[in-house]
């Protein structure tokens, strides 16, 4: 048996190998066959991840912002959902940030090639945040616009993770710091940010009292006309599974 083979061998594999393990262990010639068949993967066997990754992105990690119509991103629900994901990403050490951020921008051939070329690192890494940071170099993350309607959601998320030392690793919160004029100014900035609907021309809050009785006159507007804006859905298309990490502290 040559020393150049480093197969993990049946004894390191599934514990259910029972009789086969005994059979191989008792016969050096069979052991040699087994070692050859289970030798370490070659480079060729660990290449070609780009196709499966592309399919994975299309069917499993489908980016939430891409699925939504552009107008929905600026809705309250969209902003809050984005901030929630950003908050969860910080809580998880940044791994989800890449999924969210890279999903926000169309994947370029370069980014796909990078991911495909590093299955070893991605697969073996337990420090996902470290790898995620490395991948950010090619993913050109943008994150939500903290100067726009996402500010309220970002501020809400910030309150839940401000004490987390890794919070500023998130592009989303870096945007928030930029909008606030510095990391130290976030708290003051957020104090000034009003919840969507509080100051806008269009009232989105609930009335204090419900009208009673029938209207005295018939509206002149045709009932077939639709409002300009579609109300945001009560629930997002995709529900984050890490509910315990809700940045607002709500359960």
């Amino acid at each position, binding site marked *: 048996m*040559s020393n150049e083979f480093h197969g993990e061998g*049946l004894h*390191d*594999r*599934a514990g*259910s*190998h*029972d*009789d*086969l393990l005994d*059979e*191989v262990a008792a*016969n050096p*010639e*069979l052991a*040699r*066959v*087994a070692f*050859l*068949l*289970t*030798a370490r*993967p*070659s480079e*060729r*066997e*660990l290449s*070609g*991840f780009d*196709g*499966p*990754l592309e*399919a*994975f*992105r*299309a*069917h*499993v*990690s*489908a980016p939430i912002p891409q699925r939504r119509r552009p107008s929905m991103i600026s809705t309250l629900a969209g902003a809050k959902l984005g901030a929630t994901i950003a908050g969860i990403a910080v809580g998880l050490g940044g*791994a*989800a940030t*890449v*999924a969210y951020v890279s999903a926000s921008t169309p994947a370029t051939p370069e980014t796909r090639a990078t*991911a495909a070329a590093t*299955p*070893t690192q*991605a*697969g*073996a*890494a337990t420090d*996902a945040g470290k*790898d*995620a940071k490395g991948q950010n170099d090619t993913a050109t993350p943008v994150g939500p616009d903290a100067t726009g309607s996402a500010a309220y959601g970002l501020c809400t998320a910030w309150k839940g993770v401000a004490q987390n030392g890794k919070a500023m690793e998130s592009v989303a919160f870096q945007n928030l710091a930029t909008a606030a004029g510095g990391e130290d100014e976030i708290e003051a900035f957020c104090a000034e940010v009003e919840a969507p609907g509080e100051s806008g021309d269009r009232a989105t809050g609930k009335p204090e009292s419900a009208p009673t009785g029938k209207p005295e006159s018939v509206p002149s507007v045709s009932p077939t006309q639709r409002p300009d804006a579609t109300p945001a859905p009560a629930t997002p298309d995709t529900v984050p*599974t*890490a509910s315990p990490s809700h940045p607002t502290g709500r359960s």
Partner: protein
Amino acid sequence: MIGADFEKVLADAQAGDEYAFARLWRDLNPALLRYLSLGGEMAEEVAAETWTTVVRGLRRFEGDETAWRAWVFTTARRRAVDAGRKRAREAGLGWRASTWASDTAADSADAVVDAATTEDMLRLVRTLPAAQAEAVLLRVVAGLPVAEVAELLGRTPGSIRVACHRGLESLAKKLSKQDVTQSDLRALRG
């Protein structure tokens, strides 16, 4: 095998974590390619199709690591059978689903193979009858228990045990024969 971390890795992948999916892929793709090498040059293409199918059903999958491996290899075999059928149709040949791997075996049956690498060893495996070759690769390389291999191949556990045993014995003899041949050659040279 991923082992104790499998449950979490799978859950993370199902939640969209690309790193978790990369770990699943990295753990299984080499074994998948070795198994699909029974089908010849189409192995990589079939492996890619297999992963596409697996990814589509990933969120719905439930089970432990053995069930996961069995599912992936079952999917791979179906894709390989489809590819073999298509290839036979295009070549105007008859087709039996059970022989998706056997039509490539003859090309290396009489070849002198110095099985110094995994690739060489796989070439030797392809000289076995298809049933033995599949049983050996699914048991040894894919790491599947007898019951899962039996279900995957639609045969009895007993027949799988026999096929695997005979296949391994045959491979060991071929290796042994090669060793003698190599030894003779060295003696003649010396």
